């Protein structure tokens, strides 16, 4: 489990519009990498390009390379479905399947791989994943109740459990706490700290304290103006980005002087 990602000179287009330009970066295995930057700077778009989820939007395409342990995700003949089975994703708003129970939500990804599992095996995976997402104790008595009946924070942890149930190499998180209250946020942040033992984690956040708390490395994205492409300004160890960044724009942003 857990592989590194190398991105080489990646451009992302929506139709003719260049949304993200020339991003190169290395994301270490078993670490937490945070993407920060103002709204519309392309960090979410870039995150989605890492597991080809941007292709859901008509007209979206990329140029460049994204390598998962040396394998190009955009090579000819690579099925995006297989990419997403290795690189999981957690979204901004919790999105458990409303028609499924808690247990079925966790097992949803495994059923896709159409593996026949015995009931005891399935129970085991469900428990392991829910424990992994720090949710087991709260839901163990209502595994057959609908997933949508949980609180917002619990739903988000359910989504994390669902994502790690398939044991992906990488876990992408797109502002996973922005719809949650501070206590739920803390629970998720603790969880991220535990998950990085086993997974490569990339997290987009608008909350700079959060980036400082959870991540090992931080990438700052910025945009020159509306209609211009987003760019990676700088990427470094999180402590360095927040104490003595190399670029003036980064310093302005993290210190709140961003105009």
């Amino acid at each position, binding site marked *: 489990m857990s592989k590194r990602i190398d991105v080489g000179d990646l451009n992302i287009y929506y139709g003719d519009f260049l949304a993200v330009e020339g991003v190169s970066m290395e994301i270490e295995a078993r670490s937490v990498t945070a993407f920060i930057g103002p709204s519309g700077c392309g960090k979410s778009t870039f995150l989605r390009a890492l597991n080809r*989820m941007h292709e859901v939007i008509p007209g979206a395409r990329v140029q460049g390379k994204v390598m998962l342990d040396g394998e190009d995700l955009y090579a000819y003949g690579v099925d995006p479905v297989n990419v997403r089975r290795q690189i999981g994703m957690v*979204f901004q708003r919790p999105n458990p399947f*409303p*028609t499924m129970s808690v247990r079925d939500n966790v097992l949803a990804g495994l059923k*896709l791989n159409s593996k026949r599992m015995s009931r005891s095996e399935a129970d085991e995976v469900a428990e392991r994943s829910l424990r992994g997402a720090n949710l087991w104790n709260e839901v163990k008595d209502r595994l057959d109740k609908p997933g949508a*009946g949980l609180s917002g924070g619990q739903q988000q942890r359910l989504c994390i459990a669902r994502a790690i149930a398939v044991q992906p190499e990488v876990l992408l998180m797109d502002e996973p706490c922005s719809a949650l209250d501070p206590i739920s946020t803390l629970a998720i942040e603790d969880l991220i700290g535990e998950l990085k033992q086993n997974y490569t984690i990339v997290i987009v956040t608008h909350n700079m304290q959060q980036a400082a708390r959870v991540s090992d490395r931080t990438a700052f994205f910025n945009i020159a103006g509306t209609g211009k492409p987003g760019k990676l300004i700088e990427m470094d160890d999180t402590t360095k980005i927040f104490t003595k960044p190399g670029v003036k724009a980064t310093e302005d942003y993290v210190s709140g002087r961003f105009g």
Partner: protein
Amino acid sequence: MTTTTKAPPEADQRPSGRRGSVRPGDRNFSIAARAAGILILIVLAGVTVFLVSEALPTFQADPSEIEGGEGFFSYVWPLVFGTLVAALIALIVATPLALGIALFISHYAPRRMSQGLGYVVDLLAAIPSVVYGLWGIQWLAPNVQGAWAWLAENLGFIPLFTGPASATGRTMMTAGLVLAVMVLPIITAVSREVFLQTPKLHEEAALALGATRWEMIRMSVIPFGKPGVIGGVMLGLGRALGETMAVAMVLSTGGFTWSLVSSGNNTIAAEIALDFPESSGLKTNTLIAAGLVLFVITLGVNMLARWIVSRRKEFSGAN
């Protein structure tokens, strides 16, 4: 808000938030909405009263006086059978087709094509039922006659396909097929709308787990749309049960028979349409009583649909 300071003194004494603070717009709308709701109930009650009171002589009459001479029940049950069978054939044929078309339009077809296709399907709904009837007699019946003959020959041991097959093709199966085409646009349109409303969030949840497009549809689109689809199917069933003209034209009617590939059988609606103009006295009452039976069947179907939809409410995705 300068007006509040100049409000008349009695306005200040009213308890805020409850009575008195109702704005005219809210009040008018509430009256209009309530009136519309009550009107529907009145119309429904009126129809029920009419049906029951006009049908009553049938139930009071001596069984030998009723058409067929053996009482109302033995008169009406073949018609009920015909009505249900025709509607069932229509649904069995139309539902899978409609779901396929709806999914194709909502999730597979390129945008331009899906719009065009949507219009075409909607256009099917705009064709009058007389035209469907003509099409059924002139084109469909002769063309499917061979298929029914084949069924009678090879599957004749099943009571439903007992031969000899009708030479004209104007059979229950043909009538069912015409009804299928007629209910197709309703089921398709309703299903398409609910499929399109599937939250992006749920679709992305499935895709991010590595679902193929079909798996995504099975995991998020279909569960989300299920109550709507059931509603659409029931609307279609309602139309199929009550459809008069097309069945009256296509079906070569006759007495009860299990065979769906020979002429015979009739539906309630078609029977009423065919016999009513020349009926008088007790026969009229009998036909109205048959209409009452149809009314009860449709009511039952709708209640069943509601029950199915509400059964797993907490899993419905509405919360």
